[in-house]
């Protein structure tokens, strides 16, 4: 099993979710994060002094899937997240050793 972790623009979430569902994947977990990367921070002026904020609101999507689904999902996500502007985000893939579905007690690939 692999965990696909991607950091995307929040406004892309809805289309990403819909496309992933079409692949038959329903489970996913979202986290609100602040991301910093190559994208240049914006400068705000508040009461006369400037503050530069290098962090942007992003959404982290975590999906744990069996190994064979990984490529397909990454592809969909990349496609849906792409805008061509800096800040489009990243995808990280790591290994998950086991999973457990609490309700049924199923583990391993039956759990996801």
């Amino acid at each position, binding site marked *: 099993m692999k965990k696909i972790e991607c950091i995307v623009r*929040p*406004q892309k*979430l809805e289309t990403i979710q819909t496309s992933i569902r079409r692949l038959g994947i329903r489970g996913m977990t979202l986290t609100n994060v602040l991301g910093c990367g190559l994208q240049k921070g914006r400068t705000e002026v508040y009461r006369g002094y400037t503050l530069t904020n290098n962090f942007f609101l992003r959404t982290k999507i975590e999906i744990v899937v069996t190994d064979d689904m990984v490529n397909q999902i990454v592809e969909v996500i990349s496609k849906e997240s792409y805008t061509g502007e800096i800040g489009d985000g990243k995808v990280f893939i790591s290994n998950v050793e086991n999973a457990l579905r609490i309700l049924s007690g199923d583990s391993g690939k039956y759990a996801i």
Partner: protein
Amino acid sequence: MKTSLRKNGIFLGIFTALLLAIPGIALGAEPSVESNAVAIDTIWTLIAGFLVFFMQAGFAMVEAGFTRAKNAGNIIMKNLMDFSIGSLIYWLFGFAIMFGVDQAGLFGTTGFGMSDTFEHLGLSIPLPAFLLFQTVFAATAATIVSGAMAERTKFMSYIVYSFVISAVIYPVVGHWIWGGGWLMERGMIDFAGSTVVHSVGGWAALIGALLIGPRVGKYSKDGKSHAIPGHNITLGALGVFILWFGWFGFNPGSTLSGTNPDIGKIALNTNLAAAAGATVTMIFTWIKYKKPDVSLTLNGALAGLVAITAGCLAVDPLGAAIIGSFSGILIVLSVEFIDQFLKIDDPVGAISVHGVCGSFGTIMVGFFAVDGGLVYGGGTALLITQIIGVASVFAWTAVTSLILFGIIKATLGLRVTEEEEIRGLDIGEHGMEAYSGFEMKAPSINI
């Protein structure tokens, strides 16, 4: 000490006031029955005006609460500025158009920059008190639009719009109906301004929202309308309570006279219409949508208030409750119609509340005015006058707003960029966030 004061002939500061307060010293004139009556009328008008001023806070809270957090600072700023700029321009210009000496029943022509005593008005209360009262009314009309155009309008363009509505669009209507113009001559009844104030704001909002187009994400390509929930319903509700409170200045205060025994009735009618509006909306949404809708019910209270504003003096309490009840249904249908059929995106329902219910309430006076209404056997004369009034105000406001927003669109542009809209106008237009310190959901998702 008093003696020494008199000896020195010093009558300044608060102490002057103390002394003035002693009948017989004030301005060297003994108080009389007449001066007391004028004083009663003056304090009544002023206090009512203060309450109407406070409605600005209500509008700001309703509009901010019913829209998204990322635009809250911008909305606040618009509300603050339409009042501020409106106060200045109405003082220098709009008031003269509205209450200056009449020209062909269409507008006033004298007293720009307060260069007149406005004696032709035959006011008993001091002119500044009257001007203050009229200023807060003018600002109410202006502020209505910001809700309907919220979350996407360029700040600069909004400033220009505010300026023009307070200087010309509103004062002309005000002149027609209150300032001695042709509708006043015809006998139209719009006691506290369902049409003069609210429908002017509402129709300008309609044109503005139409021209600027819907918010990003409001309608999908297939034309389906999506909900974009407001970020702070508690604050929105506070705004509604503040508006209701302020309306007790708006309607009863429009007598401009505390010695007028009708003020009690007007206050009662105002309250009953609002209560009926809220109650009926709650019941109606409960039946229609299976759950009593909070934000529409809040709109329902406002709908009742707007609708009774024209007839609060002319109808009796039962009539007020009926007008309020009808508005409670009308508001729901109108919000749905404008959103889903006309596909005009009005984030806070301003067009329905102020434009639709304001016009509706004005027409209802033709039915329910105790003296002259159709229901009470008064025939159709008044009703026809009311309809003519409503229609002409719609025509005037729609046409002038179309020109105004059209010009702004062609020159400054009405709308912020899509990127700015997604990020929020607070950052884009003002470089700040309204809720620094809170974790926010990322702008533009609403899951």
